[in-house]
């Protein structure tokens, strides 16, 4: 396990001197970070820390004030087809008149190209992706009638349809049931084992240690980044969350200490 991690030396994402500002107040300050390929990476930090902004900057949704970003050693524009971006579930209108299968098909629009129509093969491919997430039976269901967890599964299925090398997921576990969370993590692990890179903006500190390989701690600036065993420390968490470290975060911290203690006993 750890050997494979150290073997993966190529960078999926290289962020250099990135500063992003909406209006007068910068939301990201001079961020330098290297995200290795072939790992499941968590981006954590308090609300308003710039986690989502970092993802948006990577896919060109916000224009940085300074700095540059490379995806697999090239500007994003040249790597579009390699990247699947999954926005926050709340960012779209789920009353839009369409069904689950149709949303998954949107993942193929980039490949299909301008002016062309999706074919039967595209439908088949989209259906397979829904199947992978265990919701093929909901293909014809109106998206407004899906539960939060099902909607998130549809979003991930759409990303799978793109068949990318890099997945960028913005809070895929927000408001999602436990079964969906397990399904999604199972698929993310499969993707990693196939050599894909998965970057997740994450809120639940308790699951970071068990479920992620690499962690980026962010609070307006980069606090720390590295393999979970090295970077996800109580000290770094304290520096990231500061006085705002919530009860939940404390719980994560104690969990972590216990795990570390157990590791050292072995």
């Amino acid at each position, binding site marked *: 396990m750890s050997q494979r991690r150290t073997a993966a030396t190529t960078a999926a994402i290289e962020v250099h001197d990135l500063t992003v500002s*909406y*209006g007068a107040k910068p939301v990201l300050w001079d961020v330098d970070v290297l995200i290795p390929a072939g790992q499941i990476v968590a981006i954590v930090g308090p609300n308003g820390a710039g986690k989502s902004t970092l993802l*948006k900057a990577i*896919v*060109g*949704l916000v224009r940085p004030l300074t700095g540059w970003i490379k995806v697999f050693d090239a500007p994003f*524009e040249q790597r*579009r087809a390699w*990247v699947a*971006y*999954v*926005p926050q579930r709340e*960012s*779209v*209108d789920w009353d*839009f*008149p*369409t*069904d689950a299968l*149709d*949303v998954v098909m*949107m993942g193929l*629009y*980039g490949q*299909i190209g*301008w*002016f062309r*129509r*999706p074919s039967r093969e595209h439908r088949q491919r989209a259906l397979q992706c829904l199947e992978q997430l265990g919701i093929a039976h909901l293909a014809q269901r*109106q998206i407004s009638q899906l539960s939060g967890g099902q909607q998130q599964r549809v979003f991930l299925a*759409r990303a799978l349809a*793109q068949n990318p090398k890099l997945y960028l997921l913005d809070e895929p576990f927000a408001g999602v049931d436990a079964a969906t969370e397990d399904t999604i993590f199972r698929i993310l692990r499969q993707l990693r084992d196939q050599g894909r890179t998965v970057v997740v903006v994450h809120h639940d500190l308790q699951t970071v240690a068990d479920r992620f390989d690499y962690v980026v701690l962010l609070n307006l600036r980069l606090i720390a980044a590295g393999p979970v065993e090295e970077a996800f420390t109580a000290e770094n968490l304290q520096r990231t969350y500061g006085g705002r470290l919530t009860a939940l975060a404390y719980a994560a911290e104690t969990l972590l200490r216990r795990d570390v203690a157990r590791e050292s006993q072995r």
Partner: protein
Amino acid sequence: MIVEEFYLLLVAATVAANCALIGSLLLLRKMVLLGDALSHAMLPGIVVAFAITGSLESAGVLLGASIFGLLAVALIERLAHTRLLEQDAAIGVVFTGLFALGVLGVSYYRSVDLDLDCILFGNIELTPFDLVHWGGLTLGPRAFWVNAATLAGNALLTTLLFKELKVSAFDPEFAHAQGLRPRLLHYLVMIAAAMTCVAAFSSVGAILVVAMLAVPPAAAYLWSRSMARMVVWSVLLGAAIGLVGYPVAYAINCSVAGAIALVSGICLVFAITLAPDRGLLARWWAWRQARLRTHALLLLTHLPSRPPGVALTELRQRLGLSERVFEAAVRYVQQHGLAERHHGRLIATEAAGRELADLPLDPSAQRADEREQAQR
């Protein structure tokens, strides 16, 4: 006279279908208000064209209106882009500003004969008399050709770029990341909306354009399960409303444009009430069924599964339900095989146990059976 009536129906159907098509794209982008804005913001363009050409029936009016429609689009975009105002506020500010400019112009030229009524409420009754001639042939009303041309353009835009329009309306950030240029599509839709308003205003007037942009798409939206169906239904409904409007106007002896708006309003009321899934009636029915089921399950939790069961009056008092609600619940559990009646007393079946197992009831709470036993 028959020919004129046919022309009038042709114009009304084309205008309404055209507005309904572009309106459904605007509705899915939550920008119906933009239609309102465009149809008002064109006024100064019309006045300027009138000042130059001295006529309201010239191509110059269409040009002037187009220029100001596009100017309004650009201003709204720039203003919203500064993030000083939200999009809806930007629309409101720009269109009232330009409209005010137009009103000033109209009052300045009033002495000359610029009819504000005509601009606001249109003059569809006169369109059959403004005909296009080519060689020795009469090719039908000019308003028809102007609107048919924009309709063709809009239909081409919608069919060629259907999937791009869909994804950029549903999830613009995702579309952008995929390289599908949602901003470019946004501008295309805005420009198409401006051209549509310009083409339609001389027939139905600036205000009625808004009704035609908003109502058929809103009704189709409530009624449809996919964007393709919504767009098609919207266009068909728009055309139908246009066709029905004239006979109604004739029957009640009022303006055709007004009758079209009236008919579309009635259609919307029907759609809101009767639409499947989202309609008021459908929602009320779903809510009623859900409440009935809750009452029935509540009743089951108080039902013993062994004889002698429980007497109905006793059960009703225990639950504190009104007679009507209680009887409906009793009927529900019997119809669904959840309880049986023996000598006027009610007993739960095995199926009831399975239903209740899925409920988030406190597991430590006593089952009805045990309660019954304890009482004895």
